[in-house]
């Protein structure tokens, strides 16, 4: 019996390069927005959206969660959700607001 990973279709090398270009552009955007003073009031949500976007793309495409068995997503999401929950709980508990 072969393991499941051999049956999964992964993106092509070209698609990986395109994803890397998109990630680079988003990183450049992240750095650019902190230099624009007019964006100061919306800086936190803006940075949050951009970095969460990068995070999802790397996990989905480079780590293949988008194509892999959902059990792997469940294992990762369990740790991640707990991590975010603990972080948020501590921030609220100690009244820390960035």
């Amino acid at each position: 019996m072969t393991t499941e990973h051999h049956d999964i279709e992964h993106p092509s090398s070209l698609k990986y390069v395109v994803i890397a270009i998109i990630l680079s552009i988003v990183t450049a955007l992240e750095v650019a927005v902190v230099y624009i003073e007019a964006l100061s009031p919306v800086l936190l949500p803006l940075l949050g959206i951009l970095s969460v976007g990068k995070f999802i793309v790397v996990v989905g495409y480079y780590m293949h969660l988008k194509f892999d068995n959902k059990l792997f997503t469940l294992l990762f999401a369990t740790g991640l959700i707990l991590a975010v929950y603990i972080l948020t709980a501590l921030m609220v508990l100690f009244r820390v607001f960035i």
Partner: protein
Amino acid sequence: MATHETTGHTTTTGLDNRKVMMWAFIGSDCLFFASLVSTYLLYRGKSVVGPYPYEVFNIPYTSVSAFVLLMSSLTMVLALSAIQRGDHTRLRIWLLATSILGCVFLGGQYFEFTVFVHEGVTMQGNLFGSSFFTLTGFHGLHVTFGVVILMSFFVMSLRGRLSQEQSLNIELAGLYWHFVDIVWIVIFTVIYLIEAPNVIH
């Protein structure tokens, strides 16, 4: 005996137990880094003596480091793609490229730490120093471990001890490497970029 790489290690779910273990580890490591990021954020702005983050952070320099680590994720996934196609030459090229990019990142981190220490930021100096070095230091340790693993696979491939059927080993190393990259995506935003307006203006 030689077939265990492709036929063994399956669980009742039909999934390879090494891959299940790697995802469980990554999930638990999320908690580890969350605790370190929480500590940094709880101590943020609580240092009673300097140097303060806005006095020492160099945003353009760290942005280049972030870009280097991001590109290492590309070379890592290309290495996996190469071994799955049975292209061992490209596998070695991309494994070596990933290791070099990892070393460049670590070199950059070492330089940054040296500059910080010269500026007076130390583990014992203030809350910023201790929480910053603990968080980024543990991330650096993860990167170092990843580089050692990748170099081991590079040497194994050179000696002809890494076959196409063992691509799962590269996939697991890749998962670990990409995880290190996503942790840096969070650290770069939460530690550096949020502080950036104070550094720049």
